[in-house]
């Protein structure tokens, strides 16, 4: 792209941004439990894409690159938050199985928080962002078989737990 200008970058990125920002934020909200954290990670990824657009635009799947950057950013953030939470929990004398805090406190959210992180990512990208199994595998850098496994496991566990809750309520 010899006539590369900043205006072109902005135009291209704006198109990508409008097409993918919302879905990506919602998917990552499901994983992190916080829309604020998810939005921050996605915005950070788009900033990086803007700064490296000359290189990123040549990739086969620029959106995939942006998605991976956002996920990595979120993982880093969760790790940092997890360490912080664990430290607080140690001080409070109570440990939890998962370091992720769910801001909305919904029951289904709590069920989802009980899933392994990789499973949550797979389910969020598949069910909320609407990616295919191959795209999820590519994003998470795992095999398609592993994605299918995570989807199957996640769905079974969620359905089972929701059914249990319903029985308890009835």
């Amino acid at each position: 792209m010899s006539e590369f200008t900043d205006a072109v970058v902005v135009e291209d990125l704006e198109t990508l941004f409008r097409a993918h920002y919302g879905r990506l934020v919602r998917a990552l909200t499901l994983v992190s439990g916080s829309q604020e954290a998810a939005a921050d990670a996605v915005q950070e990824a788009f900033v990086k894409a803007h700064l490296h657009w000359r290189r990123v635009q040549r990739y086969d799947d620029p959106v995939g690159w942006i998605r991976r950057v956002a996920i990595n950013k979120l993982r880093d953030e969760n790790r940092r938050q997890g360490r912080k939470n664990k430290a607080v929990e140690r001080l409070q004398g109570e440990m939890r199985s998962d370091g992720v805090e769910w801001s909305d406190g919904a029951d289904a959210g709590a069920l989802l928080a009980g899933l392994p992180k990789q499973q949550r990512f797979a389910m969020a990208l598949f069910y909320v962002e609407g990616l295919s199994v191959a795209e999820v595998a590519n994003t998470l850098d795992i095999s398609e078989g592993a994605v299918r496994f995570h989807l199957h496991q996640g769905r079974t566990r969620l359905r089972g737990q929701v059914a249990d809750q319903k029985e308890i309520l009835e």
Partner: protein
Amino acid sequence: MSDYRDPELEQMLGRLSGAYPDANTALVAVTGRVRQVKRRRAFVASTAACAVLFGVGALAVRGGDADQNVQPASESSSESSNATVTSVSTSVDDASTSSSDESTSSVDETSSSVEPVSSASVAGGSGSPSSNKGSSTSSSSGSGNSSGSSHSTVTVPNGQTTHSSAGGSIVVAVTNGDLSLVSDAPADGFTTEVKHDRADRVEVEFSDGSTTWRIRVDLVDGSPVVEISQD
């Protein structure tokens, strides 16, 4: 893949993932962050460029001073007789100015020498002032009947000035309007003879038997006027 599609689950997860965020607001935020990063990068780049320029400039100044300070004593001692350099130096505490010539000789001025003491001692022996903090240097190259002679006047704090010739150097001070000789330092092979040490005149001769260097400092209107000559 359709095995995994589950509308009910999708609906539930969709509810959990919240409403669609405002893309316009987010876009403004992203644009702002990009601008911020670019500004930061530009600042870092310009700071680095300034640092490099400053370094190169400092090296150039150092190199220039080094060239000026290296004046072999043998060169200055081989000059012909009757070389006279006169300069008026005005010294104030912690600051100094020295300029103007009163005779036919030419005076080259330089400023902010890195090592003023060494520049004086190269030409005139080991007479160095007790302190060189905040000093400035003016080097005078005598011409007239001589060629290649080298003298210098170094002003140091407390109203003291060092005057150097090939035969040696002296340090004089102006205290409460009185001139006085603080110290003298003959060059190798020279002996010192203090001719005058008065409130208005200090005169010292350095002699090695065949050549005599005279440094005379007169107090004129509160300012020392220096005359360096060779017989």
